């Protein structure tokens, strides 16, 4: 395609240099999409579609519906990129289209999830009370089974086994918690972006994130405890 071969070298270099979730700055992304850069479009598809599928899944009733929501979202992005005004990040813009598409579809399927009201009433603690000593124990409120030191440094690349375990743990989370932790910790959105995408308050975002992280940590604890005992 001749128009592609006329793409400036700079943009080609940027497209080649990013891997995984490391996308170039928004102005580069938008310019590339408008210029018809298929590599850039494919990179967005491959980077964001997982988070989009999971988010869609919390609004509609089946995986097939969720996939259609994601497809319709990308088609809307293709149609809308020329009109994108940059009032939010590209990512927030795409995810907002997704949420609106998913909500409409959820209404059609009679599966409306009352997002905001469902957030408010959760006052009980995220960490299971059975982890702590009760009022009848010597040190009420202190750990019953104390957390062990994990030998894994924070930045270490984890075994494939651990990644599978985390994926399982995420799949078992309630949809709203899964949406928040996926956007924040897996996709790397900021808390402001997540609040804007899901239209929730900062406090709700934090509560959901905390609950979800507590649950995933619990799954990893089982794994590290077993590894420690057999070491």
């Amino acid at each position, binding site marked *: 395609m001749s128009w592609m071969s006329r793409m400036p070298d700079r943009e080609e270099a940027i497209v080649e240099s990013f891997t995984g979730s490391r996308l170039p700055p928004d102005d580069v992304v938008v310019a590339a999409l408008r210029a*018809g850069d*298929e590599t850039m*479009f494919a990179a967005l598809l*491959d980077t964001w579609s997982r988070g989009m599928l999971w988010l869609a899944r919390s609004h509609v009733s089946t995986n097939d519906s969720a996939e259609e929501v994601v497809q319709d979202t990308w088609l809307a992005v293709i149609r809308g990129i020329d009109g994108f005004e940059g009032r939010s990040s590209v990512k927030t813009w795409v995810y907002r289209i997704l949420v609106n598409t998913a909500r409409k579809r959820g209404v059609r399927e009679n599966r409306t999830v009352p997002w905001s009201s469902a957030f408010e009433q959760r006052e009980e*603690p995220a960490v299971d009370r059975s982890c702590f000593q009760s009022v009848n124990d010597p040190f009420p409120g*202190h750990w019953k089974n104390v957390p062990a030191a994990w030998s894994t440094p924070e930045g270490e690349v984890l075994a494939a086994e651990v990644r599978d375990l985390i994926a399982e743990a995420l799949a078992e989370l309630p949809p709203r918690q899964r949406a928040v932790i996926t956007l924040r910790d897996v996709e790397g959105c900021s808390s402001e972006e997540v609040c804007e995408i899901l239209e929730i308050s900062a406090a709700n975002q934090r509560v959901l994130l905390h609950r979800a992280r507590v649950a995933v940590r619990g799954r990893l604890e089982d794994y590290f405890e077993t590894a420690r005992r057999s070491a």
Partner: protein
Amino acid sequence: MKSVQFRDGKAVHVVKRFSCDEWVELVTAYLESDLDEPTRCLFEEHLAGCEHCGHYLHQFRVTVTALGTLRPESLPGDMRDRLLSAFRDRRASRVEERRSS
């Protein structure tokens, strides 16, 4: 509340305003820098005096880091192909429009 903690083999008095079960509920808020100054100080005081909660915080950070290492999961192959071709068609026609105007 005052309690005795053992650090480096010595008993030391620390002011522990939070018990461990209260402290764990603040970990995400702490990592988000969402605690107000007095609460943050109390959080860090507890942390300095409680090895177990120190382990918990480390475990929490390992968990957050691990979540960030998950590989992207792509769309079903045929949908990805359909979307790429929709993109190609749309953009090609836009470029064509611009060229002829």
